[in-house]
């Protein structure tokens, strides 16, 4: 006698294939693909949107708004209105015109800093990672020393020590980010140098420096390039922070940090717009680079 639930195979209905649902993948339209990409990468999309807006502002903005340095003693501290979207400051300068003009300066400086830091840092990093040994040891210890200072403090010290000029600000802040790029590129160079194409390059007659820069370096730049986005954002923040402390870029230059610094005192007397709008610009710009950089870093790992 068979137990309950154990059916005789003969009693089973004949097998048949049941087609439950048929999925037909339609060619998605370009817009729908873009929308679904944005849904799955919301932060990246926000960042990219903001970045495009900022770049547009930096390139064509200054031609559309008024003179950022034009003072108007009759119209000082006028609140945001249809004429002055972000209001005017203590000299009657249009805060919107100044903020838009500052976008060009701040983004250019941020980008320049990231590029300078990446170029120097990656070059040193490749040498450190590819040659190893004593060279690597020395470079790494020096990097440790630099990393022991917070980047902002380091930049502050360097700018204070140098004459105040735009170039020196770029160099000082770049110097603060160089160790970061050294580490990133060194780590990748350590991976690359074990690959067979490096031995093949040596056998093809390449001398050590040529192997390092022509073969290993281009293949070790990936992480540094991705992180350059992040660093651009941080650099904008650092430059604005320095300017806020009256280090580096000086008034009356239209620069977000300078504007926040000048306007900070106005909050107490009720003129909140002179510092809030440039401050908001800093936040949005840093956010844009951070969202993009973060997403790129994650998708690499």
């Amino acid at each position, binding site marked *: 006698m068979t137990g309950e639930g154990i059916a005789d195979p003969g009693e089973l209905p004949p097998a048949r294939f049941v087609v439950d649902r048929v999925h037909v993948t339609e060619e998605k339209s370009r817009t729908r693909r873009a929308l679904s990409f944005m849904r799955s990468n919301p932060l990246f999309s926000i960042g990219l949107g903001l970045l495009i807006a900022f770049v547009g502002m930096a390139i064509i903005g200054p031609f559309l708004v008024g003179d950022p340095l034009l003072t108007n003693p009759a119209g000082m501290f006028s609140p945001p209105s249809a004429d002055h979207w972000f209001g005017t400051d203590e000299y009657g300068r249009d805060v919107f015109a100044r903020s838009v003009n500052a976008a060009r300066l701040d983004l250019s400086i941020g980008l320049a800093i990231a590029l300078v830091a990446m170029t120097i840092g990656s070059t040193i990093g490749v040498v450190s990672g590819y040659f190893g040994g004593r060279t690597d040891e020395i470079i790494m210890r020096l990097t440790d020393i630099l990393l022991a200072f917070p980047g902002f403090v380091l930049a502050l010290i360097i700018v204070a020590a140098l004459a105040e000029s735009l170039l020196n600000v770029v160099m000082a802040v770049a110097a603060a980010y160089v160790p970061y790029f050294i580490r990133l590129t060194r780590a990748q160079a350590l991976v690359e140098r074990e*690959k067979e194409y490096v*031995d*093949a390059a040596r056998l*093809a*007659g390449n001398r050590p420096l040529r192997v390092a820069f022509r*073969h290993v370096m281009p293949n070790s730049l990936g992480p540094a390039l991705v992180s350059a986005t992040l660093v651009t954002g941080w650099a904008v923040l650092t430059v604005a922070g320095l300017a806020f402390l009256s280090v580096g870029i000086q008034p009356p230059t239209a620069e977000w940090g300078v504007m926040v610094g000048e306007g900070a005192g106005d909050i107490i007397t009720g003129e909140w717009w002179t510092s809030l709008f440039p401050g908001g610009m800093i936040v949005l710009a840093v956010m844009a680079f951070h969202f993009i950089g973060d997403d790129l870093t994650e998708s690499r790992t």
Partner: protein
Amino acid sequence: MTLLECRNIHKTYGHGVATVPAVRGVDMQLERGETLGLVGESGCGKTTLGRVIVGLNAPTSGKVVFDGEDVSGRLHEPEFRRRVQMVFQHPQSSLNPKFRVSTTLREPAILLTSMRNEELGQQIEQTLRLVGLGIEYQTRKPKQLSGGQLQRVAIARALMSSPDLIVLDEPTSSLDQSIRSRIIALLKDIQERRQVSYLFISHDLSTVRKIAHRVAVMYLGRIVEVSETEALFNDPQHPYTQALLSAVPSIDPDDRSERIILRGETPSPTALPVGCSFQDRCELVHARCRVEAPLLQETGPARHVECFAVQ
């Protein structure tokens, strides 16, 4: 005429107590236009020996003599560099991923020969055709090529400086069977046209049998048997060679020859026994093997074996 000679080559990795002897006293000769197969299990030192021969690693002691000249560890000796090249095991990583095929091929010619401009362009096209790729492959990047195509490019790169010796380090082991035999046919064809010598490093015995004129069997950093290929496959003398050959699957259904299963593990190269390094796994072991290490000795025409039982 002897093209390459290894004289008592030792290569030890590491410092102090943690040293690993990868190659322990290798003597061998390679003739012009000859293919010497170098076989042995993983970790026996065959790749290290290959790297020492091309100069990527310097031997700890001993000499690499190429065409009568001591070239041990002289990677950048221009004439030696031009005349000795190498093909690596993994075609996917042996080509610079950023370079187009033409750049990869141009480099050794620019750096090692006096070829320039048109002559160089012709040489690239001619070499690509020789390895069975059309000239349209010049503009491709490694990502756009298959494993077999990548290995053909790697072979072309090795040929660009018209070398006399190419060390082939398991050039077919990461390729599938059909492509493997085509690459072997290609290598033989190139050898016929260019009179180049090969050191063919492999753990795949059936591949080695197809291409090598002579075969050297390596075990734990030493060559234990060298012989003409057919003689070695028909009559292996060293007990390790016998075990190695018996592990090759036969396609003959009537073949009932017994498979020799080696006992135990390969001893760790950091703690080698006194005497013959094969003693603990050997069928023919006797008292002498436990105290004295045998040396490679001639046991027949063009045949050397490192075993007391055979000598």
